[in-house]
C-alpha cells in the first residue's frame, strides 16, 4: 500500500479575520493510508480539508501532495477529489453523467463515458441505474454515486467530508465497511473528516484528534483509545471516567495521584507525557467503564475506588452502574453480562477495582463536551 | 490586490470573476449612480445652447429650483402657483391611489394567500394576464370605458341614474381608476407572498380564542403582513407619483400630473436643466416620503421587492 500519494501539512495556519481556524498543523499522511481527522464540529477539520482540496488558501504554511507544494494551484488542478458532506450530486444530470463529469470536462466521448460509468456502477453495486436522476435514488445509493463520481476522476487523494452523517445508523455502519473495502481495493489515500469516533476507529489507519484548531494527537485508533495524549483525546474518544487531582509522585511510567474525591490512586502515565509529568502537576486520570470491576466493599488501596451508587441500568451485553463521580460527572462502570444474577445497589456504597495499566494519567486539560 | 478581491477571483475564477465584477460595476456605477449624479449636477446649471456648454456661462445656479417655487423672473405672481399646485396635487393623488389600491387589494391578497385549491392558480393567472398587456393599452381600455359614449355612461344613462353622460375624464375619475388599475398587481403580490407564509393555525387559534374577524386582522394578519403591505404601498406610491402614460391618456385636459410638467420641459420647452431639476425634486420628495413612512412603520429596505 505504499504506492499511494502522501499528503503533508507543514506549519499550516488558517485565519478568518481574527479567528484562528487552524493553528500550526503539522501532519504527515502516508500514501495509501486511510487517515481521519476526528473532532467536534467547529474544530477546524473541514477547514483543513478545504485547504487540501484547494478551496482555501492557507494563511501560512504549506500543503504538499506527493511532495509537491500546492500553493497557488486551484482545486480543479489538484490530484484530489472531494466527497461533500451533502454529496453535491448535480441534480439535473443523470447518474451516469454525474459519475463521468470529470471525463466530460476532459473531453471524453459519450460512448467512453457510458462504458466507464457502467464499470463504476458495477463496482458500487448499482448496475443499470445510470439513467436515473440522483433524486430518484435512496440515501445510501446517492452516497455510492458520489464515491463513484470522485473515483472516476482518478484522484491520488480522496477527501471525504463527513459523507455518512446524513444516513441512518444501520446504513452508516454498513457504509463504513464498504468505504474501507473500496479504499483497500483502489489503494489511494483517503482523508476522512468525522466527528463520529466510531467511524474513525473502525476505518482509519491513523487518526488526528482535533480540538479548537489544534491537533492534539496523531496515532492509530488503538493508541488513541488506550493511550491518549491529552485530556481532550481521552474524553472525546470513547466513554471514559475522569478523576481530577494532583501528582504526588512519579515512579517510572506510573504516577500516584491525589484525587479530589477518591483518595490516592495509582495510574500509568500516557506515553506522550512520560518524562514531562512531575510531582505537583495538576493531572487527570482516566479509566474506561469496562476497565472497572467490582471488589469487596470497603477494600482500601491505590487501585480501589469507593463511591455511592446513584442508579443502575441493564443494557443487554452489560450491567451499567452509575456512581457519584468527580466534578458532577457520574462514574460509570460496565459489568459484562455472563448471565449472572445482579442485585440493585442504588443508594449503597460500592468499591471498584482496576488494573493500573488500564488507567492513564494526562496533564489536566479541557474535556470534550458531552 | 486587496485580500477580498483576491478571494473573490479565487472563488469565481479570473475570467468569470472579471465578467461578473464588470457587469455589476457597469450596472451600479454606470447605469444607476453616475446618471443620477449627472442629472443632479445638470439640474444646477443654466439652460445653454450646446456650444456654450462648458464655457464661462456654464456655472452652478439655483435658478431651476427657484423657478419651481417663484416662477419666471419678473412674473406676475409671487409664487409659481401653477407648478406647485400640480406638484402637491400629484403627491396627494398618488397617496390616494395607494390607499385605494391597498383597500382593494388587501382582501384579495388575503383570500389568495389563505385559500387552498385549484381555482387559486386560475385567479393568479387572471391577475397576471392584464399585467402583461401594454400600459398604454390598459389606459386606452379605460378610456373606452369611461368615455362620453363609453360602456359606463351608456349603462348609467340607460338605467336612468344619470340623464346626461358624466365626464369621468374631466373629473379625473378615469385617471385615478387607471392609476389604480395599473399597479394592482404590485400591491397584491408582496402582500400575498407574506400572507401565504402565515400559518393558518394562527388565525384558527385567534378565532378559537374568540376574536372577531376584524380583530384577527388587526392583531394577527396585518402585523404579520406589514413588510408586504409597506413594500406594496411603496411601489404603488412611487410608480403612481412617477406615472406618465396614464395621466397623458386619462387625465383631463386642464389637470396635469407633475411628470407631465417634466415631460413638457424636456420635449416642448427643450429646457433640460429645468426638467432635470423637476425630476430631482420629484425623486427626492418621493424617497423622503417613503423613508419617513418606513421609519414610522418600522420596516426595512430589505423587505422591498420580496
Amino acid at each position, binding site marked *: 500500500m505504499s504506492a499511494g500519494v502522501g499528503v503533508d501539512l507543514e506549519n499550516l495556519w488558517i485565519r478568518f479575520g481574527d479567528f484562528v481556524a487552524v493553528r500550526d498543523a503539522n501532519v504527515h499522511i502516508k500514501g495509501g493510508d486511510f487517515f481521519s481527522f476526528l473532532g467536534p464540529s467547529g474544530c477546524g477539520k473541514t477547514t483543513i480539508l478545504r485547504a487540501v482540496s484547494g478551496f482555501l488558501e492557507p494563511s501560512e504554511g504549506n500543503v504538499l501532495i506527493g511532495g509537491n507544494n500546492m500553493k497557488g494551484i486551484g482545486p*480543479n488542478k489538484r490530484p484530489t477529489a472531494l466527497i461533500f458532506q451533502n454529496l453535491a450530486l448535480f*441534480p439535473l444530470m443523470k447518474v451516469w453523467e454525474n459519475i463521468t463529469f470529470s471525463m466530460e470536462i476532459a473531453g471524453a466521448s459519450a460512448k467512453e463515458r457510458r462504458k466507464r460509468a457502467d464499470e463504476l456502477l458495477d463496482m458500487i453495486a448499482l448496475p443499470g441505474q445510470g439513467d436515473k436522476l440522483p433524486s430518484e435514488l435512496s440515501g445510501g445509493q446517492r452516497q455510492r454515486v458520489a464515491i463513484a463520481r470522485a473515483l472516476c476522476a482518478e484522484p491520488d487523494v480522496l477527501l471525504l467530508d463527513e459523507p455518512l452523517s446524513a444516513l441512518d445508523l444501520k446504513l452508516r455502519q454498513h457504509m463504513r465497511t464498504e468505504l474501507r473495502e473500496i479504499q483497500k481495493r483502489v489503494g489511494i489515500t483517503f482523508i476522512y473528516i468525522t466527528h463520529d469516533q466510531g467511524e474513525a476507529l473502525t476505518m482509519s489507519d491513523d487518526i488526528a484528534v482535533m480540538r479548537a484548531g489544534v491537533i492534539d494527537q496523531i496515532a492509530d485508533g488503538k493508541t488513541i483509545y488506550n493511550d491518549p495524549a491529552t485530556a481532550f483525546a481521552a474524553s472525546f474518544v470513547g466513554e471514559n471516567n475522569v478523576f481530577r487531582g494532583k501528582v504526588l509522585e512519579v515512579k517510572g511510567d506510573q504516577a500516584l495521584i491525589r484525587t479530589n474525591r477518591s483518595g490516592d490512586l495509582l495510574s500509568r502515565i500516557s506515553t506522550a507525557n512520560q518524562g514531562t509529568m512531575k510531582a505537583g502537576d495538576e493531572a487527570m486520570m482516566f479509566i474506561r467503564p469496562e476497565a472497572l470491576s467490582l471488589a469487596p466493599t470497603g477494600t482500601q488501596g491505590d487501585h480501589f475506588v469507593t463511591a455511592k451508587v446513584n442508579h443502575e441500568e441493564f443494557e443487554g451485553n452489560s450491567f451499567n452502574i452509575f456512581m457519584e463521580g468527580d466534578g458532577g460527572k457520574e462514574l460509570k462502570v460496565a459489568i459484562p453480562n455472563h448471565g449472572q444474577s445482579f442485585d440493585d445497589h442504588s443508594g449503597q456504597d460500592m468499591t471498584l477495582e482496576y488494573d493500573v495499566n488500564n488507567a492513564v494519567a494526562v496533564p489536566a486539560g479541557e474535556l470534550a463536551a458531552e | 490586490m486587496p485580500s477580498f478581491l483576491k478571494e473573490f477571483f479565487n472563488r469565481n475564477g479570473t475570467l468569470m470573476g472579471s465578467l461578473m465584477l464588470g457587469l455589476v460595476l457597469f450596472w451600479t456605477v454606470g*447605469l444607476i449612480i453616475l446618471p443620477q449624479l449627472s442629472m443632479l449636477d445638470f439640474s444646477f446649471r443654466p439652460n445653454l445652447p450646446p456650444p456654450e456648454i462648458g464655457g464661462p456661462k456654464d456655472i452652478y445656479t439655483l435658478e431651476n429650483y427657484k423657478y419651481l417655487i417663484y416662477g419666471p423672473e419678473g412674473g406676475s405672481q409671487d409664487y409659481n402657483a401653477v407648478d406647485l399646485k400640480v406638484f402637491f396635487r400629484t403627491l396627494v393623488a398618488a397617496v390616494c391611489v395607494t390607499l385605494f389600491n391597498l383597500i382593494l387589494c388587501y382582501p384579495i391578497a388575503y383570500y389568495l394567500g389563505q385559500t387552498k385549491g385549484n381555482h387559486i392558480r386560475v385567479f393568479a393567472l387572471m391577475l397576471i394576464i392584464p399585467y402583461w398587456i401594454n400600459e398604454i393599452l390598459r389606459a386606452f381600455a379605460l378610456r373606452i370605458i369611461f368615455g362620453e*359614449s363609453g360602456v359606463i355612461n351608456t349603462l348609467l344613462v340607460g338605467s336612468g341614474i344619470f340623464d346626461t353622460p358624466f365626464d369621468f375624464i374631466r373629473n379625473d375619475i378615469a385617471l385615478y381608476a387607471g392609476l389604480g388599475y395599473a399597479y394592482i398587481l404590485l400591491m397584491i403580490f408582496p402582500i400575498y407572498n407574506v400572507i401565504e407564509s402565515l400559518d393558518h393555525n394562527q388565525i384558527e387559534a385567534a378565532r378559537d380564542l374568540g376574536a372577531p374577524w376584524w380583530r384577527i386582522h388587526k392583531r394577527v394578519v396585518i402585523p404579520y403582513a406589514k413588510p408586504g403591505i409597506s413594500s406594496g404601498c411603496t411601489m404603488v406610491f412611487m410608480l403612481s407619483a412617477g406615472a406618465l402614460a396614464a395621466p397623458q*391618456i386619462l387625465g383631463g*385636459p386642464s389637470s396635469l400630473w407633475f411628470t407631465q410638467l417634466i*415631460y413638457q420641459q424636456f420635449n416642448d420647452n427643450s429646457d433640460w436643466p429645468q426638467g432635470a431639476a423637476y425630476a430631482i425634486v420629484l425623486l427626492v420628495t418621493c424617497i423622503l416620503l417613503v423613508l419617513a413612512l418606513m421609519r414610522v412603520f418600522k420596516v426595512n429596505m430589505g423587505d*422591498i421587492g420580496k
Partner: protein
Amino acid sequence: MTSDKIIRVSIWVYLGIFFAYLLGPLVIMSITAFNSPSFPRATPWECLTFEWFGALFQDERILNGIKNSILVGMGTVVLSVAMGLAGALMLTQIWPKLRATYYTIIIAPILIPGVVIGISTLVFWDRINRMLGLGADSFLSNGLFLTIIGQSTFIASYCMLVLVARLQRYDMALTEAALDLGATHAQAFRKVLMPFMMPAILSAAVLAFLASFENYNTTTFTFGEYPTLTIELAQKVRYGITPAISALAFMIVALTVFFALVNEANIKRKAMIADARKDATVGELAGKIEVPGLISRNPAAIALIVLLIGTVTVIGSAMTYSPDQCIANVQEQKRLETEKRIQELRDRRAKESAEKAAAEGAEGGATQTAPKPSNNSGFGGVFAPNTLQNEEDGAADEGVAGSSNNSGFGNVFDPNSIGNDSN
C-alpha cells in the same frame, strides 16, 4: 350558519367586482375591435367587422414600432438578464457589511420613477458623448442604445429579484464539486450553475421582454429616431383613437392568454411526469402518459384547445365574412334617422319661428330665426352631434356641447368630434 353564508356570498361578490375591474376593460376593448363604428365602442353593437385588423397591418408606423420594440426588447433581455445574474451572484458572496448598501443600490431602480431614469440616462450619456467629442449622430446618442441602456437600468433589478430567488436554493457545493472534478470556473458555470438557473433565467428573460415591450415612461425620453410600439401607441391614443388600436390590443390579449395557458399546461405536464417518474422507470413512462390522460387531467389543456378552435373559427369566418352589407344597412338606417331628425328639427324650428313670428309680429319681426336650443358658441351648432351623428339621443348633445366650450383640448379628446372627422 347564515352569517357564514353571507360571508361566502360577499366574498364572491367582492371577487366578482374585483375581477370585473381587472378584466372588464380588456374584454370591452377587445369587443370594440370587432365593432364597425370608427370610434372604439362596444355599445351599441352595429356590425361585426374585421376591417380594423386590416387597418392595423397597413399602418407603417405601428409596424415600424413593433420592429423597434423587438430590437429594444432583445437588447434589453440580454443586457438585463446578464446584469441581473451578475448582480444576484454578487449578492450571495458580497462582504456582509456592504450587503445592505449594495442591495439598496440595485433595488433602487425599481422605485425610481421611470421618467427620472429616462432623463438621467439621456443627460448622462449626452455628457459622455460630449466628453468624448462625438457628434449628435454617434452611437452613444443613438435611440436604440439609449433605450436599451435606460430600460435595462431598472429591468435588471426585476431580473435580479427573479434570479436571486432561485439562486438561494442553489447549493454552492455543486460549483465546488465541479471545480474539484477538474472543471474550470467557466465550465462549472456553464455546465452546473446555468442549467440549474435556466428556468429562472427564462422567466427573467420573458419578464424583461414584457417589461421592455410595455415601457413608456423611460422610453419616451430616450427613443430618439427609434419610436417603439408603445411610443407610437401613446401618440395615437393621445391624438385620436381608432378601433385599430383595439384590434392590436385584442391580439396582444389573445397572445398573452395563449402563452399563459401553454405555460400552465407545461407546468401541469412536468408535474405529472415528475409524479410518474417517482415510481416508474423511463421505459414505463412512455406507456403511462397517454394523450387522453393528459387532457382529462388538465383543464389548461382543454382551455387551450378551445382557444385554438376559437381562433381558427374566427380567422375562418374572417376570410369569408364581409361586413359591407351590414355596414351599408346601418348607414342607410343612420341616414334615414338623420333625415328624420333633421325633418323634425326643421318642423320644430318652423313651428317655433311661426309662433315667434306670431308673438312678435306686432313689433315688426326684425329677428326672424334665432334658434333657442342652439349653443352660445358658433361651433356648437356645427359640431353638435345631433345634426350629423344620431345614434346618441338628445342627452349626448348637451354633454358634448358643454365640453367643447371649455378648452381647445375638449374637441381633441371628445370622441364624437373624431367620429365626425372620419364619418
